[in-house]
């Protein structure tokens, strides 16, 4: 939407593209939910909430990066 598609992103903005970051954050959320519900390790369960929280906050930030 912003910027012409043929324009190459300059310098650091290339690292701030939304897509891959969003996928990363979604993976962290998914991982956290798996940790929350897995039956194998109590430690994983204990740290699941921090993971989900991190993923969710990360997603909110990352989804405001340029396309």
């Amino acid at each position, binding site marked *: 939407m912003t910027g012409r598609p043929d324009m190459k992103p300059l310098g650091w903005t290339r690292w701030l593209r939304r897509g891959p970051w*969003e996928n990363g954050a979604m993976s962290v959320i*998914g991982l*956290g*939910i798996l940790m929350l*519900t*897995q039956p194998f390790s109590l430690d994983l*369960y204990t740290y699941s*909430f921090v993971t*989900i929280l991190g993923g969710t906050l990360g*997603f909110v930030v990352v989804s405001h990066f340029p396309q």
Partner: protein
Amino acid sequence: MSGTNVTPTLVDGMAMRTAAPVARRLRGLSDRSIAWLFILPTMLLLLAINIFPLIWAIRLSFTGFMANLPAPAAFIGIDNYVDILTDEDLWANFQITAHFVFWTIALQVLIGLGLALLINQKFRGHSFWTTVILLPMMLSPAVVGNFWTLLFQPQIGPFNYLIGFFTGIAPSSFTMIGSVALAPWTVVLVNTWMWTPYVMLICLAGLRSIPDYIYEAAEVDRASPLRQFWSITLPMVLPFLMLAVLFQAIQSFVMFDMVNLLTSGGPGSTTELVSITLKRAAFEKWETGYASALAVILFVTIFGAANVYVRALNWVKQQ
């Protein structure tokens, strides 16, 4: 989002022809103020009913407050969170919830997609039967869940009788709700019965969005029906299926109504989903601070999942 507004320029153009202040009075409220006037009441209501209580819950989650005692809330830091996240019983409840979510989703996808494929054959009367199949998902889960307790009665209920009739097992020899082994599957069964139509309806929309010419091309290439299914039908339906699965996963993760009336978490705690635990902590044990912490954990989890869901929603919308 691009090209959102053509009209303001047009209105501005009109305004330019007359003197500006006069025009504003003539045109009534400006677009900007109308936009806010229209959106603000909704936002205020949501702030009052959702955000304000949420902030309150976050605050309470750091206290040992009990709503049935007059004692003021004492700040205890993250103790509630530590309690919840190191409690093996609660961990077990999350696993019970996961078992419930996994199996209802698996069955719903299997049956829902299957039905959608069959209905898409467009036999005579298919729209009538589709409507019949859709009925359960519109009904009140609580009211229906309550009635399923009669259907599952070991002696007098028709469910056991039917099973007995077809398998030869004595109808009074098993109880769907009272047995530790069967109860988790009973809630899966009733939830699948209720929500399979949901998955079916969305899959059907996915199937109908596939243009004919793709199949025509495949037929020219002599692709077998099975190959057509794997390389055309399934990939095209997948975004729709994902949408349905995500929404149902969120719904079942916090399922309360049906399970509360069907088994209320029992026998023992074999069907005690997290929402039932939460209700007990908040409204039976009155451990408000502890329950608030659990509620916050659920909020954050659902909020994270909702983000993923909206991504899927936009993905489907763009197709």
